[in-house]
């Protein structure tokens, strides 16, 4: 085993933590727990991005890290907590597929992602290339979470968690996207969350529930 520099070991540890949080989100039944986990995921992402920035001298990554911290650790979780309190939806909700099965599917996804990332990371020249597999796994797990949840807020959080995974993939494969792109994405996500927040209110106004099953009624016969 080749010895890695200490800060890269910390990045690897944080990457592993990201994956762990993704799994914790899959198994979480309560919305508030989901929001807290999402905040932790953002925090791990921000710290690892900052460490990569310091290691590689890619100073624009500092801005990305700060942006991630501000948006995904403070602003969005705060907004979600408020939303959950207002809508009073913090109950235990069973996902469509039961949780042990979801976990097993999750493991298969992780194996798939690791295999997928292996040839890509061999071509990449970054010091963080080995974490690419974890990033892809995070994206797929978030996707799985969106599929297995029927309520609106967990789906939105799944979407945001997917964005986290993509951001991490960009950092590990190419030291992040250009700053302009990242600013654009961050703004998009922020606006998206607010729009979805309003949308969630509207769904509840119309159907008296946040279960997206009811939206199937909207289909034209």
């Amino acid at each position, binding site marked *: *085993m080749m010895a890695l520099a200490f800060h890269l070991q910390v990045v690897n*540890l944080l990457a*592993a933590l990201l994956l762990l949080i993704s799994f914790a989100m899959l198994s979480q039944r309560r919305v508030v727990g989901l929001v807290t986990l999402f905040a932790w995921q953002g925090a791990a992402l921000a710290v690892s991005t900052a460490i990569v920035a310091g290691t590689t001298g890619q100073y624009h990554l500092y801005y990305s890290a700060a942006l991630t911290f501000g948006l995904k650790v403070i602003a969005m979780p705060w907004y979600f907590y408020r939303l959950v309190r207002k809508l009073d939806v913090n109950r235990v909700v069973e996902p469509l597929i039961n949780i042990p099965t979801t976990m097993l599917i999750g493991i298969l996804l992780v194996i798939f992602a*690791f295999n997928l990332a292996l040839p890509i990371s061999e071509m990449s020249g970054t010091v963080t290339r080995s974490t690419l597999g974890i990033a892809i796994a995070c994206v797929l797990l978030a996707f799985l979470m969106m599929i297995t949840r029927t309520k609106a807020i967990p789906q939105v959080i799944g979407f945001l968690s997917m964005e986290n995974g993509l951001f991490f993939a960009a950092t590990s494969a190419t030291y992040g996207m250009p700053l302009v792109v990242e600013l654009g994405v961050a703004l998009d996500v922020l606006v998206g969350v607010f729009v979805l927040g309003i949308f969630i209110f509207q769904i509840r106004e119309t159907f008296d529930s946040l279960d997206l099953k009811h939206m199937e009624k909207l289909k034209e016969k």
Partner: protein
Amino acid sequence: MSTGILLQAAQTLLAILLAPLLMGWVNQCRAWLQGRSAPSIVQPYRALRKLFHKDAVLAHDASPLFRFAPYMVFASMALAAGIVPTLANDLPFSPAADVIALVGIFALARVFLALAAMDIGTAFGTLGARREMLVSFLAEPALLMVFFTASLISQSTALPVIVATLAHKAFAIHPSLAFAAVAFWMISLAENARIPVDNPTTHLELTMIHEAMVLEYSARHLALIEWATAVKLFTYSALGIALFVPWGIAAQGDVAALPLALAAMVAKLAAGGAALSLLEAVSAKVRLFRVPEFLGTAFLLAVLGMLIHFLLEA
């Protein structure tokens, strides 16, 4: 060689004698956290002494297996306590069993306890034995996965090599070990009949697992089983320390490091016991049908640790 045997005997005896103290410490911490006045830390010793002085009562239908099982359980746990390095590494007993055989020793004790529970033929004993088997058949593969992760890092399934790799070589962060450690913690909770899988203080028929199995035992038999339970908790704690935080365990033949090793062990066990009681104070027992989910999560974490080892560390 003779120092080795002496050390081995001392370590095994220390583990067996200190085990009720650890139990007492956990109970004390938990009482503090729950705002009750705590029992003395030596309360488990008093309970054992009381039980040893009582006359044993046996059911009419009890077969010899029923009387034999407590000794078997205690002997298995004592053997396990001798194999896991607590003070010094690479003692004469350690080649007797690697981590996989260690799982087998725990399983041996469990099988005897379950058989004895079913031997009397009461409903509770059978119920407890079945539940215990449900828990253990899920916990065992997860435990093996944890051991495999540790073995992959040190390229050996022998405990002394695993300890030596982590404790006496250059420091490196192993993300896979972090996963394995969380998984191991969850498995230990299940295997030692702690909250959230089982409540060690309950006698409520709907929820008890371990207590249901030993319901028919009395006096010296019960004392041996209680003591074996304490030794099991101690051994699992020592195992966790050896796998994940082995710093301080004396290297082979390093007698001068023993006082430090003893201090480190006591400190780590005290911290571990306090953490265990904190966790028990803040969490609730889960329904029995949620236990497979709990242990499935432990298995998942252990497998993830292995996968991450291949991705990040291989």
